[in-house]
């Protein structure tokens, strides 16, 4: 139990941010939850519809399930870059000699460029008419047959809109993981090497177990950010062609602001919140199991 004065100072410091959190985060979530039981077009009166929005979402809306499946692919692509590639690059950088700082800065650069600029950049990179970077490279190396309008084909568009988001934050997560790698005691690695461990074995049995808590934290951050991903897909294709790159977030946006169905859009919003909570829960569960085992 804290003495009286400390309790007061804790309150003084904690109440303002807590209030801000309640008003800016918790309140809208509760409002969405309430609104999800109504039908509302923003102009006429609210109409209570009970669970009708949820029933429609789970049983009678193929676009919702399509968007959900797309969101999972989007998540997988983002995690591939933000957890896999970033870990690989962080390791490479830790072995690098000169130029390490430049490499780190260059990798971090995309994270500070505005989203709209990134979307325009990739629109040009994927362009088919006139040929963008990817299609030009393909025809230069003699693979011109593979050139295609990446953002227009239903089979390629989803990965094409996911990759920029993944690429964008690779540098940021690389930096976090690199900092964790720096904290791995050098003696442990050296001892392992003296015992004849290969670079891979050093990584798998010394480094990775050591940085695992940090890696899991980045996993939580990357997953929740990706599940809420909206801007780049919205700017690049607006969910199209058809619904081939429609994510839950873009679908929610369209339902609210194009179809003016705020009730149903809130239902989708509630689903996204629950989905994020489940994702974090699963990751923590895996972390706990891993810690118990080790």
């Amino acid at each position, binding site marked *: 139990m804290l003495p009286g004065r400390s309790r007061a100072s804790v309150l003084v410091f904690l109440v303002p941010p807590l209030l801000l959190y*309640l*008003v800016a985060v918790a*309140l809208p979530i509760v409002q969405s939850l309430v609104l999800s039981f109504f039908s509302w077009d923003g*102009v006429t009166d609210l109409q209570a519809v009970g669970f009708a929005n949820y029933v429609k979402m789970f049983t009678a809306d193929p676009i919702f399930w399509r968007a959900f499946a797309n969101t999972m692919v989007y998540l997988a692509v983002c995690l591939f870059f933000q957890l896999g590639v970033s870990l690989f690059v962080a390791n490479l950088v830790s072995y690098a000699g000169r130029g390490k700082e430049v490499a780190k800065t260059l990798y971090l650069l995309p994270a500070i460029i505005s989203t709209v600029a990134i979307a325009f950049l990739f629109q040009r990179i994927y362009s088919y008419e006139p040929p963008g970077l990817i299609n030009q490279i393909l025809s230069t190396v003699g693979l011109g047959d593979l050139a295609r309008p990446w953002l227009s084909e239903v089979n390629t568009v989803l990965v094409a809109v996911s990759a920029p988001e993944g690429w964008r934050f690779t540098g940021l997560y690389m930096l976090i993981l690199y900092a964790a790698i720096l904290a791995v005691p050098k003696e442990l690695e050296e001892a392992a090497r003296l015992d004849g461990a290969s670079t891979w074995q050093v990584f798998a049995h010394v480094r990775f177990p050591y940085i695992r808590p940090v890696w899991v934290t980045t996993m939580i951050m990357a997953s929740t950010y990706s599940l809420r991903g909206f801007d780049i897909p919205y700017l690049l294709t607006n969910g*199209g*062609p*058809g619904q081939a790159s429609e994510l839950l977030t873009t679908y929610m946006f369209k339902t609210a602001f194009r179809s003016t169905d705020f009730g149903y859009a809130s239902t989708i919003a509630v689903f996204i919140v629950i989905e994020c909570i489940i994702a974090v829960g699963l990751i923590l569960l895996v972390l706990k199991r891993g810690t118990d085992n080790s």
Partner: protein
Amino acid sequence: MKKTLAALAGAVTALSLALTGCSGSAAQPSPTATEIVPRQISWLLSRPADGSVISIVKKLADEYAAKHPGFSLNLITTPDRPSYLQKLQTLAAANQLPELFDTDATPFTQKLVKQGKLVDVQKMLTDLGLYDKYRPLALAYQRFDDGGLYMVPFEFELEFFWYNKALFQKAGVSVPKTLDDIVSLCKPLRDSGVIPISVDGQDGWPLLRYMSYQPFRVAGPDYIDKLKKGEAKMGDEVGSKAVQWMANLGSNKCFQDGFSSQGYTDARDLFTSGKSAMYQIGTWELASLTSKDLPASVRDNVDFFTLPTVDGAVTADNEYTVVSGIGMAVSQQTYDPLMKDFLKFVLDNYSERLAASGHLTPMKGYEPTIPDGSSELYKRALAEVNNLGEKIAFPWDTKLDPTTNTLMQQELTLLVQGDSTPESFEQKIDASIAENAPKFFG
């Protein structure tokens, strides 16, 4: 601890109440006042920031302010339409609509009308003695199905198919007489190494224009009014003819590859750089289509034709898509003597200045000044206004319920790309209309 939580909950409630309390409309004029009291008013627009409408209105507002100290017009523009609509809907939901705002005659706007939030523009223009000065077609574009008029037009534009004579000649083809001719032009044009038609596929509405052509010719302008309510079906004879035509445009590779991820300026640039042979757009692009900066091979060869016909058409050749742009609605809540006086001043002087900037005007009797150095085509295109028929092909995006509108734009892309079949398209659209139309037209 419980006490602290209770205090916290109380504070949150108080704060949220305070926030909602602050959201009442700012200056509420008294309905009985007759005196003009200058104040600041706002106009929420969705028009290009450097376009003629904004620059002319800005000048007129400055002139008005010089005579009425204390008056100012705050112009807030969001040219990107989806972002604009999001803003508008949020403000409407919060009952915070500004004095003036842009909107089309959409089902959503009709709801605002039913709530009594908009000034009856027909009455207002009659009151101001301006109603008879407008072109009937400019007003017709702004009207709802029941004839109600709640928006003021600020533009008047004709939509044509622009084509490149040299590229047509090279491919050995001539100007299409029927809509089906357009499809049959595509192969020879492709064979000659050019893109037959460039289209902005990213925005959705240009493809929807193509979708509206067959039904307008075959069944007239009323078809869409029946379709949107479910009284006509996409799978009926008229609808499926249009769907099949769209599919044919796709299978004959009429549009550029990857059109669905190309935007407005991409499509225009393909035409103005001589890479595509045809391009459908309104006279608002005249300046860029006749610009001195275009390569001579393009500039000297640009010409236009109006919407081709079909066998047994019910609409005349001189009837096609004519738009008077997004309209300006006037909020009922803040309509007072000042608003009335200001609007009279603006509308009285607006058309003359618009004509001087080289545009057709929503009012009759103003001859556009042709900009110096522009080609003969500029004059010839605008002269078509004297040859217009009585009916107009309405863009479908202002007619359909918003959910079906979005779905139809998405599905059209798939249909034209060959990723979906005409049957599946018809079935999805009919199902969406059956589900969503009653919410808006019930």
